[in-house]
């Protein structure tokens, strides 16, 4: 049985809820589709300038084992996010809150790793204005980091709302929408990790 079939089987008084559900989810997918173009342009720009390091450092600064660990953390946060969504769908608020908090914690860990990495790079002479390579690298990874930070804030807010009983089953769609955003942040990093880090070493 598909989602459509289940929703279509709802009583008439749920029709409006069905429409709102569909509209909000459609809007989220449109947003994510546009974000693909946004990050696609950023990645293209990085590839364009990947060798224009001038007199400054380049990809030799990358610490692939460290970034691999960060990538693993972000990848696992997608697992905890989907488990949170699953728990809320099953009306298990306590379990959902645990997984939401775990996701926020993993996201914060990824951000801490990125801040550490940026600090190391700046100390090694790679700043935003060192070279086109530096500018495009910080723009791409910085914007991704900003997306992760926004996601962590949304996850934290949802975990707090759930403690006060304001994230009941009827708000399950909110968890689903935040989940879609979070998984998107993860898949963008899958591309960045491959193209920016692994292929440049």
């Amino acid at each position, binding site marked *: *049985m*598909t*989602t*459509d079939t*289940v*929703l279509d089987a709802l009583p008439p008084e749920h029709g409006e809820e069905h429409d709102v559900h569909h509209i909000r*989810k*459609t809007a989220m*997918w*449109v947003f*994510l*589709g*546009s*974000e*693909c*173009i946004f*990050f*696609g*342009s950023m*990645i*293209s*720009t990085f*590839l*364009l300038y990947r060798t224009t390091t001038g007199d400054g450092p380049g990809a030799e600064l990358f610490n*692939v*084992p460290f970034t*691999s660990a960060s*990538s*693993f953390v972000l*990848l*696992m946060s*997608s*697992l905890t*996010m*989907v*488990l949170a969504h*699953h728990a809320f*769908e*099953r009306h298990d608020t306590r379990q959902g809150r645990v997984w939401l908090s775990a996701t926020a914690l993993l996201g914060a860990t990824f951000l801490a790793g990125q801040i550490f990495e940026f600090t190391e790079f700046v100390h090694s002479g790679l700043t935003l204005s060192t070279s086109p390579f530096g500018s495009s690298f910080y723009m791409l990874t910085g914007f991704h980091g900003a997306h992760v930070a926004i996601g962590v804030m949304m996850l934290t807010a949802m975990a707090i709302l759930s403690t006060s009983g304001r994230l009941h089953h009827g708000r399950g769609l909110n968890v689903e929408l935040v*989940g*879609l955003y979070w*998984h*998107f942040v*993860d*898949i963008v990093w*899958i*591309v960045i*990790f*491959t*193209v920016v880090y*692994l*292929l440049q*070493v």
Partner: protein
Amino acid sequence: MTLAATTHPTPRLYWMIALILAVVTAAEVGASYVDAVEPVLVPLLLVLGAVKFGIVVAFFMHLKFDRPLFRSLFLVGVFGAIPLFVVVLLTFGAL
């Protein structure tokens, strides 16, 4: 019967998917250090990255089970980024 029970995979499947993603990531990192795969490293990493991308989108984002409309909206974005990528690189003579 809940919506979750009818349309979403089980937590067990999610854990298995996470394990597959971890193994693929380890393979990616390992491959980037092995000299023997150097000639095919770029296509290999792109394929492995695409596999991870597809698994997350299909199972964690439920696109495999959700409405075809959502799949179309997302694919417009993904496949819209590819010509953008080519045009940018062609414009600046990088291709």
